[in-house]
């Protein structure tokens, strides 16, 4: 069909098509060289044993079998990562929305607060990690000092196996302004006349939130859920810089395990298998969330 259309196309249309493909050449080269080929190679390498020095040795599905049946570290890394997702994701979604609702109040000077709350989101993970390491020092840290004056004995934070993961979650909440800005854009797209109509009908603030704001915000919520989830699966810097996965592997995030296997132990085959499993987990959860979205995401056109 395409060929038939091509034969009948005018010289101008043909030239335009050629120019169109020419314009995509950079992207096509990049797509092949930096996406398709690496993924293909990665799948192959995951079926081998390879240190990078000698040629890869084919071992079939052994890496995957070992991962699922005989590798406590894999399960620990998975547990830590899923635990972090479960801990931080609801907090980030709810607090981000709360902050956005405040920022959406129609009072002068809101731009100033918007600017302030977004600052943490532009600072590098390394700088943020170092900063929180200092803030959460068990003895002299400012957080525990303030808790002390409030009559609470602060925990050992990153240095306590039970508190290390919540500490990383706390750090990620500091960056909640990043999500708030996206919610804010969603809030500002909700037509004002809906609120006016509801008010005339006597709906209070609470009812307006549950009946108008939340339903109309579900597309943004859905988008945020997916983005934040993928991000939470990919925590690396905090674990690498602050805890090195400790104490007692309490913050042994999945990507830290991947990094150590690949670039410290040079088990490239096994590390590729780890990366592939993470990709599949992310894809499956995304597909699952997408599948459930039909039940709870509201689209105006429907």
């Amino acid at each position: 069909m395409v060929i038939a259309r091509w034969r009948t196309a005018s010289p101008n249309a043909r030239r335009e098509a050629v120019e169109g493909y020419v314009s995509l050449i950079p992207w096509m080269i990049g797509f092949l060289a930096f996406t398709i080929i690496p993924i293909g190679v990665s799948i192959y390498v995951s079926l081998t044993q390879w240190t990078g020095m000698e040629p890869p040795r084919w071992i079939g599905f052994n890496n995957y079998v070992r991962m699922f049946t005989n590798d406590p570290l894999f399960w620990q890394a998975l547990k830590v990562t899923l635990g972090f997702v479960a801990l931080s994701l609801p907090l980030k979604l709810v607090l981000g929305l709360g902050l956005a609702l405040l920022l959406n109040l129609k009072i002068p000077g809101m731009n100033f607060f918007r600017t302030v709350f977004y600052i943490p989101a532009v600072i590098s993970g390394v700088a943020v990690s170092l900063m929180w390491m200092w803030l959460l020092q068990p003895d002299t840290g400012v957080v525990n000092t303030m808790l002390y004056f409030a009559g609470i004995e602060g925990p050992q934070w990153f240095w306590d196996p039970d508190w290390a993961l919540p500490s990383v979650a706390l750090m990620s909440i500091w960056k909640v302004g990043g999500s708030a800005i996206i919610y804010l854009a969603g809030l500002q797209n909700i037509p004002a006349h809906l609120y006016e109509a509801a008010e005339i009908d006597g709906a209070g603030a609470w009812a307006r939130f549950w009946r108008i704001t939340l339903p109309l915000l579900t597309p943004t919520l859905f988008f945020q859920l997916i983005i934040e989830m993928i991000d939470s699966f990919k925590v690396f810097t905090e674990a690498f810089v602050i805890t090195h996965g400790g104490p007692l592997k309490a913050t042994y995030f999945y990507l830290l395990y991947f990094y150590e296997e690949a670039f410290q132990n040079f088990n490239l085959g096994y590390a590729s298998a780890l990366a592939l499993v993470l990709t599949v987990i992310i894809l499956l959860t995304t597909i699952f969330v997408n599948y459930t979205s039909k039940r709870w995401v509201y689209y105006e056109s429907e």
Partner: protein
Amino acid sequence: MSQSKRLTVADIQQMSSASAKRFRAKKWARYFAAYAVMTAIAIVFMIPLLWMFSTSLKSRSEIFAWPPSWIPEQPIWSNYAEAFNKYPLGRFMVNSFVLVLGNTMGELVAVPIIAYGFARLNFPFKRVLFVLMLSTMMIPGQIKLIPLYSIYNQLKLTNTYVPLILPSFFGNPFFIFLMVQYIRTIPRDLDEAARIDGAGTWTILYRIVLPLCKPVLAVMIVFTFLWVWNDFLQPLIYLSDFYTYPISVGLAFFQGRYSVEWNMFMAATLVSILPVLVLYFFAQRHLIGGIASLGLKG
């Protein structure tokens, strides 16, 4: 609140002066409550940065004093000079700037051409290719690291900036999408008028369309700066020579080596985020607009 704004002068005059006063008082009470809540949250959010600044000006004995004080007895500004002496911060920051520059160049060369093709030219399978391009954004980059690393390694390109800059010359899907959206808002009449005057496709791109794209190019440059400046995993993997480290890897390298000198260390960390903060304050309007329209984060 919205209903208060919509009251007209006539409405207010109609009210008795007492109820108008009560109305105004209520409005101010609401404003006050909102500002109080926002200010409280803003202070909590800024405590970490303020504490970092305070620590950076303290003496070595004062940082471990108890109870700690917010304001240093005697601010020691020379901590900053010493931090520069102790860690090659200047070198690290220059390295980061070089990476930012290389990536910016790459994006500016590649993205406009690709975006123009998707936005303006017609060719078979355009939609399919566009969706394909967007879907690559979902793939976690880590899956590509090992193959890319071993390829660069065989080409003797590890420990150079090539692996960290080269990909930008093939277009970042986020930026391509952003620019396609933007070009679509530019009236096609301009292109067509130029075409009638005999301008070719590439002349139209560089003489007509691109000059109108300045706002979106600015957003691209700012994002590139933030991402490259803050990137950690990739330089960590590709670079092994200490003096080639960008600021992110350089800072992490010192952690643990001088763990007692938190005053120096906080000074160095603060210096490392300063370029980002400065850029942010100048560009925040564009930046936040770009984030909101795309759903991107820093």
